[in-house]
């Protein structure tokens, strides 16, 4: 009986404390960031990658923070899920940023369909949204996308492969990464479109790495076994490239099998320099983070509508890797940002 009373008293105190805490936070929101209204003063912008843990997203972060620093009085709230496959985790994360009243949300959708509703609910709550790298479907008109033209980049990868292999008939394989994701689909379609223009190239295998180096290595080993005449591989993202390079090396076929890769992790760059990779399609993640945050800030402060833009790709080869232009993309810094402006 005594314990029961104590518990009830405890609960009452807790409830009172909760009520107090709630009333304290209620009027923090100033209605800023609503449709058309502009905001003065400090801004908090949430920037959410598809997943944390890859070089690529860290560069996006550097670009976002550079834009924030350049604009002044802007804080970037960087947070993301552990794995690109954790779609629901990302939905919750975005939802939380809406709840905690971020002034704007800049994010890359892990799934184009699953994230569409949460973008809409952010807009309904008066929080503007800009997409980077991967958009949603449908994507509202007022939401811009700052991304690589994956299709064009992958089509060019097929051209590079054809160029490297030269005349004649050649077996080639594709290491994709996350079947079902928008970016993956675009690169696969772009590459197959590109292949269609080269009659000599036959696609004999296509396997996913699920963005795991170990898995990329495993499927490439098996593709090499199944296709002894394999002459070329297009690997469509960082872990896929690293695994493919290792598998080709372990099979003792470095140089015989031409690898065209995507992204620019340090080990990819060193493999390119050593001739184990023929060319890399390198996006400009710095520019994605930069444009996302810079345009969001301008929208919030000046009311400028945000418009989508292609963030561009660079084709890096052993020949051009040391040019200033390529180095600005490979080693982006806020002192010499690889952005137009």
């Amino acid at each position: 009986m005594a314990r029961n009373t104590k518990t009830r008293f405890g609960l009452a105190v807790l409830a009172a404390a909760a009520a107090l805490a709630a009333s304290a936070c209620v009027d923090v929101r100033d209605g800023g960031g609503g449709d058309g209204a502009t905001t003065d003063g400090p801004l908090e912008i949430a920037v959410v990658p598809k997943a944390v843990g890859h070089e690529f997203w860290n560069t996006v972060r550097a670009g976002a923070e550079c834009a924030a620093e350049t604009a002044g009085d802007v804080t970037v709230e960087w947070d993301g899920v552990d794995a690109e496959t954790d779609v629901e985790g990302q939905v919750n994360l975005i939802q939380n940023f809406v709840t905690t009243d971020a002034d704007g949300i800049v994010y890359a959708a892990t799934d184009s369909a699953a994230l569409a509703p949460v973008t809409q609910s952010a807009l309904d709550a008066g929080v503007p949204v800009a997409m980077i790298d991967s958009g949603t479907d449908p994507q509202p008109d007022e939401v811009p996308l700052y991304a690589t033209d994956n299709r064009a980049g992958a089509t060019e990868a097929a051209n590079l492969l054809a160029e490297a292999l030269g005349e004649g008939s050649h077996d080639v394989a594709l290491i994709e990464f996350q079947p079902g994701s928008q970016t993956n689909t675009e690169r696969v379609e772009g590459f197959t479109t590109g292949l269609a223009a080269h009659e000599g190239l036959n696609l004999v295998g296509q396997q996913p790495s699920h963005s795991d180096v170990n898995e990329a290595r495993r499927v490439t080993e098996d593709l090499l076994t199944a296709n002894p005449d394999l002459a070329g591989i297009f690997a469509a993202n960082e872990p896929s490239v690293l695994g493919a390079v290792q598998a080709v090396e372990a099979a003792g076929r470095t140089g015989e099998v031409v690898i065209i890769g995507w992204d620019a992790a340090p080990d990819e760059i060193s493999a390119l320099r050593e001739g184990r990779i023929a060319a890399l399609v390198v996006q400009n993640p710095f520019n994605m983070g930069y444009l996302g945050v810079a345009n969001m800030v301008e929208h919030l402060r000046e009311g400028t509508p945000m418009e989508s833009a292609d963030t561009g790709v660079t084709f890096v080869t052993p020949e051009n890797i040391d040019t200033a232009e390529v180095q600005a993309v490979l080693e982006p810094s806020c002192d010499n940002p690889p952005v137009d402006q």
Partner: protein
Amino acid sequence: MTGPRAQAGEWLRERIAVAVSEFTAATALVVLFAVLCFASPHFLTADNLFNIGSQTAVIAIIAVAQTIVIITKGIDLSVGSVAALAGVMGAIVVRDLGFSVWTAALVAIAVGTLAGLANGVLITYAQLPPFIATLGMMSVGRGLVFIVTGAVGVYSLPESFQLIGNGVIAGIPFAVVVTAIVALAAGYLLSESRFGQHVYAMGSNLEAARRAGVPVRRNLIAVYALAGSLVGLGGMIAASRVSSGQPNYGIGLELDVIAAAVIGGASLFGGQGRIAGTIIGAFLIALVRNGSVLLGINIHYQQVIVGLIIWAAVYFDQYRRRRLETRV
């Protein structure tokens, strides 16, 4: 109270049941092997068998760890995160402190053991269910991986880092040799040692084992620590194989290794399972994946096939056990 005779009968029956389910999985393995020999001219080649061995090593080692845990009626969901943590720590000490790859392997094993010890203490002293204790470790471990790596892969490692994952002894992948040693040692420990008897006893009936004087807490902590050390070793081999510490390594690995153990006859209800069965299960899954690529089967079907094998293995297992029990 059951008499010693009834207990002996019970023991015999269990042994037969386990042997039967292993036989089922082994048959499936042989059939699949034969089918692939005919279906693909590239399957039965030295290179491909070499690759299958290397590809299976890490999963097999970690599945051995999982099997010991499952026999105690436990589960370890943290294997993927802990393997990643051990792998990146092994890579970091080589890159930043100039350790040799062998010392790095000891560091990785130590990291895994510590995580396992923590699991064991949480399960015995804090009395958390294994599912919860290791679920927490899964999250803590992954978080620590991102903290120590700054969420970037650990690259720029010397060539010697690849020795454990890619080395070759007398034509056999070093990782396969390590797997064989681990499997034999664990098999011996489980079937021949007092500790092994205790493991089965605790899984069959924890309370009875406790009353019979088995040091339950100490043994359970030892089980999770041992499992952790193997997971650490596996994580190091995985990192060495791709010559880098990958913060995203091992997401979903727990499902693969639980599948291997279950296909091999381990029961999630505890008290049943053998290392030989688990190794067969690990190779069965690896063969499905290897064969699918050789035959150009789409990834989505590979996943469906692995799921079907899990269902079939457990179904036949239980069906034959039931028949045996009514017959004996």
